[in-house]
């Protein structure tokens, strides 16, 4: 049974001039449990919008998304929030760390909106250790290098033991060395945690390391040059 199954998904935005712009028009897509897949596509092709739809941050205009057996279109917004908090980990290109929170607090934040976690602090420290930040638990994000910030974002994304990790250009802001290290950590930790990984990127170096690669343009039947609003 697939972990993620998408069918006939449509998302349209209204442009400032009032005209409609369909960003996602996806007939069918699936990701199996514990599978790691790279979704390849150019900037502005709607990959982020797809991830937002999967995460329940955006609501589709049509179609179905089923995650771990739960049909998103049947869920209210609070239920989608809950599903996101319990089932999905999100890694952003720009990390989106809470700047006023220390590293350990950022990881703890990742556990805050799901079910209660026993020994949360110890678990947060363990995750920091796993991504090589055990000596930075009391540091603020701005006190970390870019690579360290991305690893902190990985630790936070895994904090709620997600079944599905969504990674949006996770190496886009990193140099090659840090990109390699971050990518390795993301893939290894997902494997260790039994989480499936859907990584969107346009980086050929990254794509080359995945066995499962899907060209986004092949499944998204819409114009790909325009940036969604």
């Amino acid at each position: 049974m697939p972990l993620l199954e998408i069918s006939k998904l449509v998302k349209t935005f209204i442009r400032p001039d009032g005209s409609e712009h369909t960003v996602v028009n996806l007939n069918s897509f699936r990701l199996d449990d514990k599978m790691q897949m790279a979704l390849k596509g150019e900037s502005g092709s709607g990959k982020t919008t797809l991830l937002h739809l999967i995460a329940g941050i955006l609501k589709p205009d049509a179609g179905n998304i089923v995650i771990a057996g739960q049909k998103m279109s049947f869920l209210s917004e609070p239920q989608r929030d809950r599903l996101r908090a319990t089932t999905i980990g999100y890694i952003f290109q720009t990390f989106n760390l809470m700047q006023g929170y220390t590293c350990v607090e950022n990881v703890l934040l990742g556990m805050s909106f799901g079910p209660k976690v026993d020994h949360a602090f110890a678990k947060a420290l363990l995750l920091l250790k796993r991504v090589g930040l055990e000596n930075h638990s009391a540091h603020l994000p701005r006190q970390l290098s870019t690579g360290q910030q991305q690893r902190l974002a990985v630790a936070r994304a895994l904090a709620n033991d997600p079944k599905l990790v969504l990674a949006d250009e996770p190496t886009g802001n990193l140099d090659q060395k840090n990109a390699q290290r971050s990518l390795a950590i993301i893939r290894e930790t997902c494997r260790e945690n039994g989480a499936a990984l859907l990584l969107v990127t346009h980086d050929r170096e990254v794509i080359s390391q995945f066995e499962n690669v899907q060209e986004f343009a092949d499944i998204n039947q819409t114009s790909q040059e325009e940036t969604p609003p």
Partner: protein
Amino acid sequence: MTIWFIVFKSLKQHAFSTIVTALSVALAGGLLMSVWSIKEQSEATFTNVNAGFDAVLGARGSKLQLVLNAIFNLESSPGNLEWSDFLDIQKNPDVELAVPIAVGDNYRGYRIVGTTLDLFEETEYAPGKKFALQPGGNWFDPLRREAVVGDFVARKMKLKVGDTFHPFHGLIFDEKNQHSETYVVVGILKPSNTPADQVIWIPLEGIQKMSGHDPKMATEVSAVLVKLKADSALAGFQMDQMYNRQGNRLTFAWPIATIMAELFDKIGWFDRVLAMVSYLVAIVASASILASIYNSMNERRREIAILRALGARRITIFTSILIEAASISALGMLIGFAVYVAIFSIAASIIREQTGVVLDPLKFNAIMLWAPAMLIVLGALAGIIPAIKAYRTDVAQNLAPTS
């Protein structure tokens, strides 16, 4: 990690505006509590201070002036009354005690009052409490130029037993109006927390026969403090009729508490103005909470979007902003208690210096509960608009960039 922690982090992150806004709440809360508390406590205290007497007999004039002059040692005397008037009221079968006083002199601004030893030996200035001397002192000899000094005056003027001084003519100190008589301090009163602490007490004859005073004054007194017998329920009413309705030469100020309550009625408008100012400050303080959180909403949008992306519900974000606004108020009210104590203490020290009446800033008043509650609720209400803005934050738009 709870919603409280998220609120705490936000307050810490916006520490400067949090502190400034909390200070404005503190000022509002402190003002509101002190204005209210001083008003209520001073009204209760002033209407209860009667120096142990029920009424004051004096020259024809305002009852309030008579009470302020004879009991609180404020205001000037409305005039004198004959010694025979004192003897008449003293002999009245309904009168338990009548004590004459004479005023007209001061020592460096502190009032000198002539009286008889009855004031100290027979009067209970409060139930079960009589005036007492500090160790090493004596009451004055009515036939000598001796003085018993109130505790407050003694401390302020550094007077001690054995010291001498020259009285000055009038109730307002003027270096040029020194009398030639020399008085010896023979006793210092123990603190009574009454207007008696503000006075230098000398024998009645001392004022009556002071050099330079009108010779007519030798047979006059400024007022008579009157204590009615406890079982003479109608005595006050009858004497009120006799002196105030049937007579036209004297004024019988009775009952003292009612007359003082009239004073507070007269200055009630001033309380209302102060209370109005406090309410306005409270509203401005709440508006400042609204402004400070609202203005920071732009920089918060991204963090709100991150929290939402991590699974926080809209209502969680909404509630956290309300709690944050209420917390700023609560923090302000904590500081507000310090502002209250400071304002109250300054006011109490001025009131004590002027009247001898002691007000206690630590005495409980219901305002200490409802002012903080009101300001915290106002703070939370001020958070509603920014909370709605936070509630509506578009997550996807604020998680830029997109790919």
